[in-house]
């Protein structure tokens, strides 16, 4: 049984990043799905050339989950799905900016 009173600690992604296999497992896809999307340039902006040293952070995890949802929900082409989440990110960025400047 889980002890409810014993606080547990995690690690913050971005301080400790995910490997290729960990990201794939977190999103419930095969590593090949991740590799394909890194090669497309939708995921892993800081990914190095060496696949074994690829590391992914919070942003990649969030984007990967949203990408998958668009691809599956709409049987969307991967490039179109990438464009959709890029636009979504831009909307979020602009909304945050507007709020920060006091424009609602």
């Amino acid at each position: 049984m889980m002890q409810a009173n014993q606080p547990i600690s995690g690690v913050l992604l971005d301080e400790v990043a995910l490997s290729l296999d960990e990201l794939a497992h977190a999103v419930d896809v095969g590593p090949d799905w991740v590799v394909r999307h890194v090669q497309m340039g939708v995921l892993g902006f800081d990914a190095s050339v060496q696949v074994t040293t690829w590391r992914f952070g919070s942003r990649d995890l969030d984007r990967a989950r949203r990408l998958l949802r668009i691809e599956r929900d709409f049987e969307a082409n991967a490039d179109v799905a990438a464009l959709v989440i890029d636009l979504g990110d831009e909307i979020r960025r602009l909304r945050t900016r507007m709020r920060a400047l006091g424009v609602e």
Partner: protein
Amino acid sequence: VEYKDYYKTLGVERTAPAKEIKAAYRKLVRKYHPDVSKHKDADEKTKEINEAYDVLGDAEKRAAYDELGPGFQQGQEFRPPPDWGAQHGFGGVNAEDLFADLFADLGRRGQAGRAGARRTFQMPGDDIHAAISIDLHDAYTGTTRAVVLRVPEPDAHGRPQMREKTLSVNIPKGVTPGQQLRLAGQGHPGMGGGPPGDLYLEIQFNPDPRYRVEGVNVYQNVPVTPWEAALGANIAVQTPSGQVEVTVPPNSQAGRKLRLKGRGIPARTPGDLYLILEVVLPPADTERARELYAQMARELAFNPRQT
């Protein structure tokens, strides 16, 4: 547990072909997508739509759902019949659980069952994704929050049952909105001795009328008097990291941004705090106040509409 009419959620007939269900689902997902929808309850709606489609979009789960029959009303108190779902491999489902949980596990177990026929099947548990809301202040100090999860746990017969599990989680200082906290081994249990999955918590911030957060930077409005703005002043400001003394430079206008370096969220690279000056005019509601305004009008000869 309350019965949910998934057909009603998607706005289709019980007899609708799979193609029609998919089309209805897609239309609704677009309509309520959180990035574009103006509906206040877009997030909630999206969740309902996804839940309905998770069942009706899967032939096996839809068949199990249909087996319950059309006799139930949305929200009606509901207990699954004792023999229900036997042919779909449910069995032993706890009726206290959320309605969606009745179907949640079907796909996974079907998969494991099929593979298990060939050899002893071992599979790591799925990861769980959830969100947790904290106050901005918590990001400055760190905090501990309770997270309630619904996870399957094997019963005496090895069949998974949904159980509520409460975790007390340390939220470290320096977290920013959208950041993910990974808790190793706190996901779904593995199968056949496989390791458990992980829990990912997305950090969200409760809205606070005093502050706005952008990444590691924080914005805060600070009301000042016209003479503080004009002449300059040292003022005390209550910031998320406590009270600080701030120098307002002379000749400041409304909207001027004062940057307090390193007083944003204390992430690995700490953010900055921006104080945005808001000049508040004293009301001209006494003879003396009106006199002072009139004196300024005469003696300053100031017209902001003239360049």
